[in-house]
């Protein structure tokens, strides 16, 4: 199997975040090449690459671009660097170790789509990463790579700015992100119209994830077909898998987009802590339906995971060993969504704390079997009933955990206690060295 590294290749090199180092490794050559191509041809190249959004939805990037209306200007690009889906920690490392790769990707996207202004919306908690981006952008401006003339020669202005959020999970949702960027609270918008048509300040807007854009220089340099060939079916390239929880070597692994989940956990991450067995795996960030141990021999490719009843989401793989309590885990997940619900839609605003409460009751030993049924009923009445995907994101873990580990939920109710006692988060809860690309943390 191919082990091509697109995104992590430069991580760990001395000064990898600096322009000189990026250029020494051929950086910005792809942008130069892109400028010699027709924008429409670039969009076609990205379509051919089968690049799909790495933020969560997995939508085809080239197709998303082609939804921009032909005749409305200005258009904007907003880069989603709000990385806050629990279990996801990849975009921060792209920014920390290779910010110019992202900037080059942004510039290519701008040229391909006739966009002159891009905003990088970065979550407020990433203060250090925001500083790194500011420094790299300033380097790129000083070197006249971006600014009034792209690469100092093309009569095409590209202005890229960093916009820091201030702590709200919901702002990773693209329309909430736009509201936030407009100086408002992050309330998702009704869709349609989609941001490609009515986006930032009412204008056509592309919203792409950091990892998605960072792939563009490679695609331009090597061609869409080469990128597609790294993957399978309708998904091209590699992905950054973020593995956390009860594995021996957690971290960020760049693997083909169709890497096998079991292999990722047992081989790449060195298996389970203490030689224990896998109990459950969340494959794509905490919103993704959980897989039980018998279901993990599966490709992580978007469509394959969809067929398996879950989703590839943001690439956040959270691993639970057999000693972990599923009720406790789900309670914490439910608390997250209750906390982060923006409050706009009633089913989500009212339903998420209700689910959290039922789970708290069960975990504390005060629950009954009827609470388990009510939990499922609650999740079903949130699913599909809200403006944005946060409602579904809160419902899907509940539906899947209860369905796949029902005995454990009923046992909590029958015994009026948590059978795992003090060890609900597992018998071995210690931090282990992480592997991030080729780096050790």
């Amino acid at each position, binding site marked *: 199997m191919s082990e091509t590294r697109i995104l992590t290749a430069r991580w760990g090199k001395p000064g990898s975040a600096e322009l000189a180092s990026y250029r020494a490794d051929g950086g910005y050559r792809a942008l130069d090449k892109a400028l010699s191509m027709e924008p429409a041809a670039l969009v076609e190249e990205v379509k051919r690459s089968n690049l799909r959004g790495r933020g969560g939805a997995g939508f085809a990037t080239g197709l998303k671009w082609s939804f921009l209306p032909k005749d409305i200007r200005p258009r904007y690009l907003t880069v989603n660097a709000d*990385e*806050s*889906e*629990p*279990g*996801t*920690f990849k*975009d921060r490392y792209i920014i920390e170790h290779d910010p110019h790769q992202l900037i080059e990707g942004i510039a290519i996207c701008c040229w391909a789509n006739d966009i002159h*202004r891009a905003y990088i919306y970065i*979550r*407020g*908690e*990433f*203060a*250090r990463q925001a500083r790194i981006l500011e420094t790299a952008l300033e380097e790129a401006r000083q070197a006249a790579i971006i600014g009034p003339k792209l690469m100092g020669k093309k009569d095409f202005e590209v202005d890229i*700015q960093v*916009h*820091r*959020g*201030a*702590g*709200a*999970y919901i702002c990773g949702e693209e329309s909430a992100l736009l509201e*936030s*960027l*407009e*100086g*408002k*609270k*992050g309330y998702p918008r009704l869709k349609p119209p989609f941001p490609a048509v009515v986006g930032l*300040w009412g204008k056509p807007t592309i919203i792409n994830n950091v990892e998605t854009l960072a792939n563009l220089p490679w695609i331009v340099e090597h061609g869409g077909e080469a990128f597609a060939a790294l993957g399978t079916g309708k998904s091209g390239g590699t992905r950054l898998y*973020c*593995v*956390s*929880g*009860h594995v021996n070597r*957690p*971290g*960020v692994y760049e693997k083909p987009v169709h890497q096998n989940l079991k292999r990722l956990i047992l081989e790449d991450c060195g298996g389970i802590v203490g030689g224990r067995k896998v109990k459950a795996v969340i494959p794509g960030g*905490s919103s993704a339906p959980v897989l039980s141990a018998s279901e993990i021999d599966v490709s992580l490719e978007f469509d394959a995971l969809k067929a398996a009843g879950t989703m590839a989401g943001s690439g*956040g793989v*959270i691993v*639970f060993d057999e000693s*972990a309590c599923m009720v406790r*885990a789900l309670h*914490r*997940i439910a608390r*997250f969504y209750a*906390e*982060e619900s*923006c409050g706009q839609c009633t089913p989500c605003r009212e339903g998420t704390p209700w689910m959290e409460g039922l789970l708290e009751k069960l975990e504390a030993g005060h629950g009954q079997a009827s609470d388990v049924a009510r939990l499922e009923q609650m999740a079903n009445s949130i699913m599909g009933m809200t403006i944005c995907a946060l409602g579904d994101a809160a419902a899907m873990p509940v539906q899947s955990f209860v369905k796949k580990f029902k005995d454990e939920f009923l046992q909590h109710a029958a015994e009026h206690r948590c059978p795992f006692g003090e060890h609900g*988060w*597992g018998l071995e*809860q*210690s*931090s*282990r060295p*992480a592997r*991030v690309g080729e780096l050790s*943390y």
Partner: protein
Amino acid sequence: MSSPKAVAAADSLPREKVEQFDRQLAALVRRYPEDRRASALIPALRLGQELFGHLAPEVQLLAAARLGVTPARADEVATFYQMFHTRPPGRHVVEMCTNVSCCLTGAEQIWTHLQRKLGVKPGETTADGRITLREVECLGSCGTAPAMLVDEEMYERLTVEKVDEILGRLE
């Protein structure tokens, strides 16, 4: 820009700090198109929090007036986002993640330890005004969990000992 409320707001704040606010805000506003100054509201509130300590009503009014948005809008934004303080925090803000990946690697014990050691509940400030302790959601540090922010700087792969050492360095 010059509504009575805004003038009053600016008047009740230290003059030199308001001038500093205006100077720095001018640079932030340039990041957005001229007719889209309102987009600088989150950066303006962050700047206000940095300069004045927290987002008191006067500070919110100042930011709102300078950007031409209503005071209600500033209040809405100041209270929606988790990183904004509408009441004065301690000299240091310690924010610990207790989400799933952190708990799987020991965050629960550390979180209990933090509360016991500081003698505060989540959201409270120590009696000497030194530290405000907050529980936060996923910090994007799940591979190097458990994690916490201290005054917006990230600390990872925490242990009880490491946390004690970090707290010991805070004045």
